[in-house]
C-alpha cells in the first residue's frame, strides 16, 4: 500500500563505486522527482521526469544519471561515488506539471560513501 517506495533504504559503499537507487509510485502520477537532503537537512531538487521525459535537470554532476523506464518508476544511478555524495536521497511524485500539484515523498535512501 506504500504510495512512493524506494530501495534500498540504506546504502553504504566505498569511493569510486557505482550504485543505483530505485523508486516506484503506485499513485498513478505522471511526474516524478529526485531530491537530495544534505547533512544540514537542506532539501534541493535534482531531477524531474514527466511521463518518462526529463523536464528538470538541476546543476548536478553528470556522474548522476536518472532513468525512467515507465511513468511509475524513476531510478537514480551514480557513477564514481565521492565522499560528498553522502546524503539522503528522496524520490517524490505528483500529478502532471501542467498544474501545480501536491508532491508526495518516499521514505528516502541514506547513502554513505566511505
Amino acid at each position: 500500500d506504500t504510495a512512493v517506495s524506494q530501495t534500498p533504504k540504506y546504502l553504504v559503499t566505498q569511493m569510486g563505486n557505482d550504485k543505483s537507487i530505485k523508486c516506484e509510485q503506485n499513485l498513478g502520477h505522471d511526474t516524478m522527482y529526485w531530491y537530495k537532503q544534505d547533512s544540514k537537512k537542506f532539501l534541493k531538487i535534482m531531477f524531474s521526469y514527466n511521463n518518462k521525459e526529463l523536464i528538470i535537470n538541476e546543476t548536478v554532476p553528470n556522474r548522476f544519471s536518472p532513468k525512467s523506464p515507465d511513468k511509475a518508476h524513476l531510478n537514480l544511478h551514480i557513477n564514481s561515488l565521492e565522499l560528498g555524495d553522502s546524503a539522503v536521497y528522496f524520490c517524490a511524485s505528483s500529478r502532471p506539471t501542467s498544474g501545480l500539484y501536491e508532491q508526495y515523498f518516499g521514505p528516502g535512501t541514506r547513502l554513505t560513501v566511505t
Partner: protein
Amino acid sequence: GIQVEQSPPDLILQEGANSTLRCNFSDSVNNLQWFHQNPWGQLINLFYIPSGTKQNGRLSATTVATERYSLLYISSSQTTDSGVYFCAVPISGGYNKLIFGAGTRLAVHP
C-alpha cells in the same frame, strides 16, 4: 530566484504547549506545502495550502499569499510532534519544482 525563509530555526517546547512556525517567501506563489520530517527521516505531508486556512486535528495552517507568508500552528504539542518542519513553494513556470526552506527543528519534551 525565490527565497524561502523559516522561523524560528529551533524551538523547544514542553508537552502541551502551543507554537507558531512561520514561512516567508520572496515572490508570489500558487501553492505551498508544509511537511514534517520525523526523527526517522520520513517526510510527511501536512498541508497543501495555496491560500486560506486549513485544519487537521491539532495542526492548522494559514497562507496569506498576498503578503507572502504562511503560518503553521501546533496546539497541545506532543512528543511525537518532534522533528523538522519544512515549508516548500514551487517556482513559477518551473515545472512544479519545489524550493524548500531551511526548516524549523522542534523538540517537544515530556
